[in-house]
């Protein structure tokens, strides 16, 4: 038998519900809506040592400029670019943000970033390496100041490799000794255009032609694809690898060398002896394997409310003093030329190795067309490496696919 509920009207219950909703509304309201901080807001996707270096710099700025505080916001990398693209046009974005240069074309076309040539004079521009600075230029305009550059280089275990290979023939010669130890001579992210790019340029190929249009189906690119397949079939590299796997294999001695970037330094386990040098020369062509260069810079939002103040912060972050701090604390390969006047910094093996490689690095084209290439090219690489597809066929399919993506709906190009 059900216990009889207290007799009451539905109005009483309705009042209870209304009260609950009112309380909830007040509570939620008190928790508050968004408020924007004053001063300059800078978004970044750094973690670890790079983040600490940036925070040290921000603290320095804040103690020197208490009236114009700099606020750093760490945004996860996955969401970063999309957040910028949606936030800035709605007026909610940061005043400055740190990102690599390859999206500059997209953002410039969409009016998300502000050209800064107005504030930059010759002495300021002379501070930077020409390659890094030119990576921040798109369509004849300067869009940001470069902070650091990243590219791939050859890491090797000094306990396994006494003399790193200078040509790809020497690389193939390493196979028997390594395999006898149950290891591979080399590993890198093979099914990815970024990892494959050194070979592509080593064979004389490229992704875009001189007019900036996508042109991937060339004989040189096919030769590079065939080469990457040969690396697998000859036992130079494992059949599939991802970034984390390369790190694991290097630490556990299952590979002797790895093609990785400056970030790899933090991934190497303590106790593993290592060194870094430049990538070998491709024996078939005699050209050096040149990786993609990615310049990380600080960009200004087109909707920044205090653009002059924002530029002052940009100047500070890209100053020589800040560059030395970033180079020493965060092992960044900085874009400031004079940072390397410091002998200890110049002698640091990581800095030296990467700077030598930078002489042969090609900036990633910042055109919007380039960004459509990465995923399909990775697909083509995977197809060639794991099946019998001929490289020329894979590239031909790739080119027609890319042409389809670039098509405007009425069929015109």
């Amino acid at each position: 038998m059900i216990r009889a509920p207290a007799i009451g009207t539905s109005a009483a219950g309705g009042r209870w519900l209304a009260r609950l909703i009112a309380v909830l509304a007040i509570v939620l309201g008190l928790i508050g809506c968004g408020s924007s901080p004053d001063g300059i807001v800078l978004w970044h996707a750094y973690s670890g040592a790079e983040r600490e270096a940036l925070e040290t710099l921000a603290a320095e700025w804040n103690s020197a400029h208490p009236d114009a505080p700099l606020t750093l916001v760490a945004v996860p990398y996955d969401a970063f670019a999309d957040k910028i693209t949606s936030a800035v046009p709605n007026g909610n974005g940061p005043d400055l943000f740190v990102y690599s240069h390859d999206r500059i074309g997209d953002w410039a076309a969409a009016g998300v970033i502000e050209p800064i040539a107005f504030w930059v004079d010759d002495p300021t521009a002379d501070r930077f390496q020409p390659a890094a600075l030119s990576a921040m230029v798109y369509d004849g305009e300067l869009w940001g100041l470069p902070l650091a550059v990243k590219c791939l280089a050859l890491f090797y275990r000094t306990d396994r490799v006494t003399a790193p290979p200078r040509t790809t023939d020497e690389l193939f010669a390493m196979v028997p000794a390594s395999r006898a130890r149950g290891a591979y001579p080399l590993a890198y992210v093979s099914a990815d255009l970024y990892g494959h790019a050194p070979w592509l340029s080593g064979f004389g190929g490229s992704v875009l032609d001189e007019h900036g249009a996508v042109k991937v189906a060339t004989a040189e690119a096919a030769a590079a694809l065939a080469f990457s397949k040969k690396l697998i079939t000859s036992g130079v590299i494992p059949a599939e690898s991802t970034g984390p796997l390369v790190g694991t294999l290097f630490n556990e001695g299952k590979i002797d060398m790895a093609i990785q970037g400056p970030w790899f330094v933090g991934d190497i386990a303590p106790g593993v002896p290592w060194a870094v040098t430049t990538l070998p020369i491709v024996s078939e062509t005699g050209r050096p394997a040149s990786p993609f260069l990615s310049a990380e810079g600080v960009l200004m939002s087109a909707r920044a409310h205090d653009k002059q103040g924002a530029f002052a912060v940009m100047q500070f972050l890209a100053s020589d003093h800040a560059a030395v701090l970033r180079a020493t604390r965060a092992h960044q390969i900085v874009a400031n030329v004079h940072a390397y006047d410091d002998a200890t910094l110049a002698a640091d093996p990581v800095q030296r190795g990467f700077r030598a490689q930078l002489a042969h690095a090609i900036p990633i084209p910042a055109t919007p067309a380039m960004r459509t290439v990465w995923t399909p090219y990775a697909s083509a690489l995977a197809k060639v490496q794991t099946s019998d597809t001929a490289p020329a066929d894979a590239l031909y399919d790739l080119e027609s696919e890319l042409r389809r993506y670039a098509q405007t709906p009425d069929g015109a190009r």
Partner: protein
Amino acid sequence: MTRATPPHTGAQLRDWTVASLFALVVALAVFVGHRNHALRARQLELADRAAAEIALGRPPIAEAEAAGIVGAPHPSATHPFLHPRTVTGPTGTRPLGGPSAPAVDKLLYDAAERYDARGPFVELASDGSGHAIAARPGTGGVAVAVIAPESPEGMPWLIILGALGLGAVIAAAGALIGGAARPLGLAIGGALLAIPANGWGGMGATISIVCASLAVTIASGRGTLARAFAGFRTHRVAIAFLAPASLAMFVLVATPFCVGLVLGFFDHQHGQWSFVGLSNFGEILSGGGRAFDDPLNFWFILGVTVVWTAANVFLHVTIGVALAMLLRQAWLPGKGVWRMLLILPWAIPNYITALIWKGMFQGEYGAINALLHAAGLDGVSWFSSWATAFSANVVTNTWLGFPFMMVVAIGALESVPRDFYEAAVVDGATPWQRFIHITLPHLKPALGPAVVLGSIWTFNMFNVIYLVSAGKPGGSTDILVTDAYRWAFERGERYGMAAAYGAIIFLVLLLWTVFGSRIGRREDKS
């Protein structure tokens, strides 16, 4: 048809409220539009006048924040992208630019740059600050003037409240007088806001307010309004119960949903939107001019998605229900511990577990192949053929998804009274018969929604496919939602195509649900 009840003031005021709500919305909207337009026109006119003065060599007008003749650029020898200019004002010539230049100077500089590229103009600054900028040819360069932003006038609350108050009084008076004065009072009282709205929005606003007021009066006279309110009263409990959820859903879900649907009719490339009608849909549904077994053909991807959904839902429900039934047995000790263990895949963030599964399927070093080797079998290259990559995705998603179905099934099984089973055993029913005739019907009400919603979620499951197989080999294990994502973020920000894709996904699911519920209803009837 019943006539309206004899007039009384309360009903009149209620009807007046309906009419004036509409009038208020229209009046506010046209006021805001008028205010913004007037402000913009004023700013632009000032800017144009200021630039004209500068071009004629006269001193700048008072309202100009900055003005002058901007000279031609002198590109730097070493850095061709640096092209500083100078500006000539009443105080002489000074350089434009440099590290400590004020922000308003940049507006002058940008205006001159834009003039060189596209000719003279008068416009509001594109950074949303409200500055008005004009550029026209001048002696020795470009005459540019920048007008400071002005805050718009405030809302005319006094006028609005006055009109509303007067309207209420008129409507009430008409009701008290009675007879023909009642509808007259309602019509006039409801339309009073048309007078100020005329000043803000012209005849269009006036006519719409008057028409609305007339419509409400007619409806009131015919009793429609009274019936509608009576209906609300009858169902007020249901409405009160439903309203909060519906309101939240309507605002936060329906609105982006409609925007998403509408965007499918546009194309977005290189930052520009353009209306393309059904072109996106045509491109997708025709398969992009590719063969049916090409992974980039929509129909191929649709097929993969359907197989993906069916396989996953089948496995999730089977495993979930089986485990729930195992855990229901009265003699089993430590049920709580088993339940906690089996819910782990749901509790741990799926980003890291999906990547661990991906690592486990790695060809040379992965745990799955290590297990196969230990069992004496050959390793499998999981991501180089469609069937194996698809299986890897299904295994991972099943691992992630069965706890949810298990929990729902546990809850659903609780609704089955145990004496039914005992009675069935006494009657000699086999376990299978007991399952079909007792357990299953009791499971359906609670498990049904989980299955329906679960299949919708699986159809749109992005994470697992993207993280585990990433579409390998060659995009063939991509499902519709990952392909849509690629259109949006990897193929040049083609948001229009992605939105069209989303709309098609939606239609497919809708058709399937309608179809499925029709079949279900037919089964129930038979």
